[in-house]
């Protein structure tokens, strides 16, 4: 017996792990389930390990103090060997983890894997998704910069909308009256102890159930899940047409996990670490705070909700959504697994995915926000003030100086909050323009107090020049009628 073998047996005699490990490794999986579609769960687990390792390495340097966190990130980025790379790995690892967890969830949903007897595996998975998002948000806070600061402000403002206990909840979230050192400390505790501890426990249970209950078989149209026969049918399937998990299925997991790790490393190397952006000094108000990629859709939704719907929406919809996800396997625990026979489920999935995609896309360029420096940085295109009267030219000056440009684009630049004004003269008559400028309305502020009559006249004259060549100016139908009826 070689020394190595003797050493192994010394440990095995004391640990007694060989039996359970062999059981787990060699348990049969349905041949068709050893598929490339089944690699996302293990990749998510690999990313979790990566986050733990890189997180510990960052914690060696990071200082969870409101006064020093930003400086310690700066030190990691600029003064320590590979500090920037570890921050980048942790940041990109987080992006990949959210993405892979979401893909894993879509796959499991599409394949009907949440049905009997894997309901609890799905329910734990829902909470693991929430914890992953929780890690992403708390992680963004630990990157204690301007975005983190104002992101917390948004969090606190959402909390404050809870009826009755909103005020106490804000103080609980912030650890005091304002966003400050105490806030960072409690988010550090959440990000480093509370959420990852729970997430690891849930991950262990999740994987335990996958091994004990067996991996979901490849769904076949017409193969119906029934509570009283499913377990027996599954065992027959794996007996008749099964292969051992190791190595027949595991090699794909290993390949994919390695590829994902490599992709994280490449992204980290090429794109570098996230921020930190400006220091978390609230007196620097020249800032345009924005959440990280995975919360952009929420940022967009909050911009589009009408004020009256906003509070009920933010407080009720997430609760309903989570309840629906948790209830899904309990309500639809039996029946068809195949996507060929579940059109509603697939349509639902596509609708949710497209909605999230659209809102995220909108979140990347925030058309609802005024562009704060458009009035001073985007000049009026010269061709628009060519061949115009001095009064109209003065109107262009008023247009810029009164920050109209922050919300209205001309010549393709400027804000997108209000309509582009390149053809406004084809839509509004002089009277309508004056009314709109002075009284506002339709989500535009009233400028009556801020414009002198000469300024208003000049501005409206300028706006009346805004029509593409060959397009007639807008006419007021009632005026024409009056004119016609006045004529004998």
């Amino acid at each position, binding site marked *: 017996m070689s020394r190595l073998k003797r050493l192994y047996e010394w440990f095995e005699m004391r640990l007694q792990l060989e039996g359970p490990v062999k059981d787990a490794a060699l348990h049969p999986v349905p041949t068709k389930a050893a598929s490339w579609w089944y690699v996302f769960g293990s990749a998510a687990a690999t990313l979790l390990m990566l986050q733990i390792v890189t997180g510990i390495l960052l914690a060696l340097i990071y200082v969870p103090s409101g006064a020093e966190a930003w400086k310690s990130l700066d030190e990691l980025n600029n003064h320590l060997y590979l500090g920037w790379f570890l921050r980048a790995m942790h940041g990109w690892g987080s992006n990949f983890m959210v993405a892979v967890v979401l893909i894993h969830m879509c796959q499991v949903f599409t394949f009907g894997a949440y049905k009997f007897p894997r309901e609890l595996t799905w329910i734990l998975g829902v909470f693991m998704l929430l914890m992953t998002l929780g890690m992403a948000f708390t992680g963004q806070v630990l990157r204690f910069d301007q975005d983190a600061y104002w992101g917390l402000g948004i969090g*606190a*403002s959402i909390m404050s909308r809870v009826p009755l206990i*909103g*005020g*106490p909840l804000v103080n609980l979230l912030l650890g005091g009256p304002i966003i*400050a050192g105490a806030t960072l*400390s409690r988010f550090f505790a959440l990000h480093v102890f509370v959420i990852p501890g729970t997430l690891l426990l849930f991950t262990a249970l999740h994987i335990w159930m996958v091994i004990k209950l067996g991996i979901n078989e490849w769904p076949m149209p017409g193969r119906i899940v029934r509570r009283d026969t499913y377990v027996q049918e599954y065992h027959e399937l794996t007996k008749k047409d099964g292969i051992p998990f190791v190595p027949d299925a595991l090699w794909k997991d290993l390949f994919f996990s390695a590829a994902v790790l490599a992709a994280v490393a490449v992204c980290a190397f090429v794109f570098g670490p996230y921020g930190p952006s400006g220091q978390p000094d609230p007196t620097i108000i020249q800032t345009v705070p924005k959440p990280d990629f995975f919360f952009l859709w929420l940022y967009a939704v909050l911009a589009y909700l009408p004020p009256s719907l906003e509070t009920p929406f933010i407080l009720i919809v997430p609760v309903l959504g989570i309840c629906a996800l948790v209830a899904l396997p309990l309500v639809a625990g039996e029946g068809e697994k195949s996507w060929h026979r579940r059109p509603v489920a697939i349509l639902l999935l596509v609708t949710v995915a497209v909605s999230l995609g659209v809102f995220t896309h909108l979140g990347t360029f925030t058309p609802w926000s*005024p562009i704060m420096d458009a009035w001073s940085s985007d000049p009026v295109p010269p061709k628009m003030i060519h061949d115009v009267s001095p009064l109209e030219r003065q109107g262009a000056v008023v247009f810029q100086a009164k920050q109209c440009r922050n919300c209205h684009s001309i010549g393709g630049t400027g804000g997108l909050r209000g309509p582009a004004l390149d053809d406004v003269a084809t839509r509004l008559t002089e009277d309508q323009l004056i009314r709109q400028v002075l009284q506002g309305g339709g989500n535009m502020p009233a400028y009556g107090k801020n414009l002198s009559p000469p300024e208003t006249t000049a501005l409206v004259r300028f706006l009346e020049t805004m029509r593409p060549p060959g397009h007639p100016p807008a006419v007021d139908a009632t005026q024409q009628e009056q004119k016609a009826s006045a004529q004998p």
Partner: protein
Amino acid sequence: MSEEKPVTRRWLLMGIGVAFNAIVGVAIAVPVIGYLLSPIKKKGTYYKWISLGKLDQFPEGQTRLADFVNPFERPQDGETANTPCWVRRVSADKFQVFAINCAHLGCPVRWFPQSELFMCPCHGGVYYADGARASGPPERGLFTYDYKVANGELHINAGQMPTLADQAKLVTITGKGKSPCLG
């Protein structure tokens, strides 16, 4: 698994042991809930009068950015203890002190003296010079701080981040308000 579990002396002792642990656990844990909830204070506790400086930094008819150090500052707060606010001096002794936080979701609003509007960079909330809502998603006007003038300085009652849950007062729109050009 036994068919029926007789209450033996040892089962009874174990039961008492569990109960004993539960009592000790609760006795220790309940006060700790108070520790966890300690940031929650009675309304008004997080407010103190603080000075924004001499009156002459705020010219009449103008709106200026001012900042103050939060009265409940702790050493680890660093620069986050600084808080900005907008001071509008309406007349010699009449002021409006607005919180920097948008009434929608708390982002920092910016004052544009040319168009006399506050604009928020996050979701496009816009307010008039008197703090009244002009457009966008906010459901009310800007939050204001109570102020008083003492010893030639402007003092405000501040300390808590203003949110919808806080007792920050609603800006009352008097006179012409939203539609200034209408008779």
